[in-house]
Structure formats: structure tokens, C-alpha cells
């Protein structure tokens, strides 16, 4: 990569103190993100969401985030306090979560929620923010933005809700979008639309995207590059279209455990977890593209 990366993470660690010592939810994680679509896959508890939240400064106390370096362009994320993060979130780095039902405010119209982000980051008037919000709703292919603007979250479908979320996240023009299981709560056909919209927005604005998902097929067909996480570490990193040729036994295990249309096996191979996979890895794994 010739251009400097949008985001650089070196040796990220997220630690939760516990009664019997610290629990390392994320460890030895290093990667950089350019103007690309990076997928992070893994099972529940692998640390993929925690990685995303750590970048956003969303790890609650007593959890601790430590890193040798975590830089968003010129901003040093390791030195930011809550106020600093608040100025950054939405403006330079944004996150779409799994279920719009829970991430939208139920007692505020969705349009106003989108406009609020604009007002906060640009100190704009409600009128200007409203105009910007309507434009943004249109950009995510909502057909009748005026009508949707005035609706409450319970009045819109899940797919529509996720489009609203994307509009809200992109209205302040961030450089990076982190999407944490953005389509898991949606139907397959709606999933495709939401991904398509996200892809279009990220491309046209030259953004970087981190897609966090448990769905190997989705990540391998949507992303450029994939990081595979297990027990808090990146165990493998490869080009998305080469995921089928992954070498780590964990990734291989996940791939073969998936039922396949047209290849019915009497028994699906079950994943055997090797205690060796838990051993600390050198922190460079995720860096090489």
C-alpha cells in the first residue's frame, strides 16, 4: 500500500480484571486498514466485536484498552479521553450495530435522529440538518425520505431501520465505518440490499470498512481481506477470495463444519479445538495483506 493507512492498530489488548486474574478478551491484535473492505470473522467470544468497540473507545470500565499504537490518521486513539472520542465518533469513525430495533431511539422520529448527528458535529441549525438528513436518507435509497423522516423506529422495517442507521453514521462524513453484524437480524434478500447500499456508500466516499461477522460466506464474498479471530487473537489473515484455501486448522474447521447445498455429508466434521491455538502469537499476523 502506497497511501498511508486510514487506521493503524499495533498490538491491541483489551483486558477485563476478574477474581482469578485478568481476562484477556483481545490480545496481540495488529492490523492496518486502507480504503478497503476488511472482514473480521470468528465465533461468539472470539473478540471480534470487542476489537471494533475498542477502536471506537466503547469499552466500559473496569475493562482496559492497551495498545502499542492505535492511530486514526493523525489522531492517537490511545491518548483520547471520553470527550475526545465523542468528537471523533460519527465524525471520523462510525459504527453500525446488529439490530436497528435496539440501536435507534424508540421515542424520537428516525429523521430527527439522523439530523441530530449533523447538528452535533457541524453545529448546524435544525433546518440545515433536516435538509442534510433528507439527502442522506435518499442516498441510502429510501424512496420517500420526507415520509420516513417523520416515522418512529417501530413503524419501519428492519431493513429500512438499518438504512437509517447507515444514513445516521455517514452524515458527518467519517473515514471509517465499522459494521458489527449489520445484517444478522435481517432476511437474506434484505441483507443483500443493505450490504449493497453500504458497499456503494463506502466506495463512492473512499472510506474504509470493517465488517464484523460470524458468517464466513458473507465475509468472503463481500470483503477484500479477511482476519480470522479465535480466543482474542488474529489466527489467520488472507485475501477474501482465498478464504477457501485458508490454512489455520481453526479456519479450516469452520469452513468444513458449514453445511453445503449440493454436497450433503452424512456427518459434518466437528471442530476439535486444539489447546495450542490459545498460545500467544507474535503480534504481526494481521499486518501483511
Amino acid at each position, binding site marked *: 500500500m502506497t497511501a498511508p493507512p486510514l487506521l493503524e492498530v499495533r498490538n491491541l489488548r483489551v483486558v477485563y480484571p476478574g477474581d482469578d486474574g485478568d481476562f484477556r478478551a483481545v490480545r496481540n491484535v495488529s492490523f492496518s486498514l486502507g480504503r478497503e473492505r476488511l472482514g473480521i470473522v470468528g465465533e461468539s467470544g472470539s473478540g471480534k466485536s470487542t476489537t471494533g468497540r475498542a477502536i471506537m473507545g466503547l469499552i466500559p470500565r473496569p475493562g482496559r484498552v492497551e495498545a502499542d499504537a492505535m492511530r486514526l490518521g493523525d489522531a492517537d486513539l490511545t491518548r483520547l479521553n471520553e470527550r475526545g472520542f465523542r468528537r471523533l465518533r460519527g465524525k471520523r469513525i462510525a459504527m453500525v450495530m446488529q439490530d436497528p430495533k435496539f440501536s435507534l431511539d424508540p421515542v424520537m422520529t428516525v429523521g430527527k435522529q439522523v439530523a441530530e448527528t449533523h447538528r452535533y458535529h457541524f453545529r448546524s441549525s435544525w433546518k440545515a440538518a433536516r435538509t442534510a438528513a433528507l439527502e442522506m436518507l435518499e442516498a441510502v435509497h429510501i424512496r420517500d425520505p420526507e415520509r420516513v423522516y417523520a416515522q418512529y423506529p417501530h413503524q419501519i422495517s428492519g431493513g429500512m431501520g438499518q438504512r437509517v442507521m447507515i444514513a445516521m453514521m455517514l452524515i458527518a462524513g467519517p473515514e471509517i465505518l465499522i459494521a458489527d453484524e449489520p445484517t444478522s437480524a435481517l432476511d*437474506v434478500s434484505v441483507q443483500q440490499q443493505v450490504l449493497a447500499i453500504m458497499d456503494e456508500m463506502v466506495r463512492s466516499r473512499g472510506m474504509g470498512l470493517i465488517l464484523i461477522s460470524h458468517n464466513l460466506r458473507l465475509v468472503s464474498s*463481500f470483503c477484500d481481506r479477511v482476519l480470522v479471530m479465535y480466543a482474542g487473537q488474529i489466527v489467520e489473515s488472507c485475501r477474501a477470495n482465498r478464504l477457501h484455501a485458508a490454512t489455520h486448522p481453526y479456519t479450516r474447521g469452520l469452513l468444513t463444519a458449514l453445511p453445503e*447445498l449440493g454436497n450433503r455429508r452424512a*456427518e459434518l466434521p*466437528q471442530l476439535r479445538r486444539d489447546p495450542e491455538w490459545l498460545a500467544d502469537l507474535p503480534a504481526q499476523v494481521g499486518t501483511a495483506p
Partner: protein
Amino acid sequence: MIELDRVSVTYGVGHTALRAVQDVSLRIASGEALGLVGESGSGKSTVLRAVAGLIPHAEGRIAIDGRVLPNRRPRESRKIIQMVFQDPYGSLHPNQTVDQTLSAPIAIHRLGDAERRIMAALTEVGLGREHRYRYPHQLSGGQRQRVAIARALILEPRALLLDEPTSALDVSVQAEILNLLTRLRRDHGLTMLMVSHDLAVIAHICDRIGVMRGGRLLEMTTAAAMAEGRVSDPYSQQLLRANQTLDPAAIADVTA
């Protein structure tokens, strides 16, 4: 073994009435596994609930072994057909141990011999003695789904109704549960009616697959035909594409 003849389900009355299932007819032979696929709101889960007797106002005819079931189900029919739900955390009582959960059906059906039955059911689903007195929150997602399956099996039913039994689970755990279901079907000759939005999961367990949309059964096809892309209905084709990879057509639809 299970026969549905023009089954319809309507929720609500008057102009707000919603026809959730419309004239669905199908037959499942003894020992067969039949799958229903479709999106949320297609009516696939409602069909399952109607068969289970959870929707007393279902219209049409539902028969087991040729005997039509009345809307209020006799206790014996519940012993023949049991259901496993999607989310094992929601379907197990949080304040009851595995032992209590498994004892209830034995008591209701006055089967007796609880000790032996509970241990047999636990062994059957790959759980041990140590899991017997645990609460749901002390079990992993996969173990909880095993308990839910044990609860269904304890009455030694002939048919299982499976509502998205693996969609709340991780890939590796999904494989374990699917293997368990395959083995149970083989060992006990269980008849299965399974609902899922995941075509690959359905095709792994089931031979015949019905595609549902808007409350109607659009097409009855087979797993083999699906795999070869031999489906006639345009919606089935779309569903098939969407299940495989990212569908460029869907992307073109939105961005056009």
C-alpha cells in the same frame, strides 16, 4: 404420517385481519424429513405452530396417521409430536434446572420411571450426569439446545417439529446439533418437519423442501433439485441465489 389439508391461519379480525398462512397442503411420510424455507413473515413458523397445536383457531385439516386432530389437542397427540424452538435461552425456564425441565413432561403424561428416562434422554443428546442439576444460564448455547432436544425426546415422540433449531448457534456448534439431529432421525426413525431461512441447513437434514412466501406454499421441491438450481418458481430462484453468495442482481436492483 403428518397430513395438512388446506390449512389457513388468520390473525386478527375485520380489516386488520392478517392471513398468515393460506391453503397450505402437504404430506410427510413416516421417517421423512421435510423442510420449509422462506423469509420472516412467510408463514413457515406459523405452519409449524399449527401442526403443534399452538394455534387453536387454524382452519383446514391436520391429521396424524389419518386421524384428524381436533383444535383442542388430546394429550396423546402431544406425546406423538414434540417441538424444538429457535432460541434455547427463551424456550427453557430460567429458574428450573435441567432435571426439572425434563421431569415436567414425564409428570404430565404420568409415565413414571423418571430417573431412567431423564438419564437416557441426557445421554441421547450427549450430555452427562454433571449437567442434570444446572440452570440454563450455567450452560452454553449448544448445551441449552441439547437440553431443549432432550425435553422433546423424553416423551419418545415419533415426530419432531424444528423451528430454526440452529440459527442462534455458532457454526461449529451448529454442526454438532445438525449431526445430533441426523443421528436421532436415523436411530429412532423420527419424522421431522423443519423450518429455517438457511437453505444449506435445510438441505442438509431434509429430502423434500417447500418454499413459502406470503403465507402460501409456492413450490415443493427436493434438496437435490435445489442444489442443481432446478427450481421453477422465480422467487425460489431468487432465494437460492441469495443463499449462495452476494447476489449482483439484488445489488443492481437497489442501486438502479
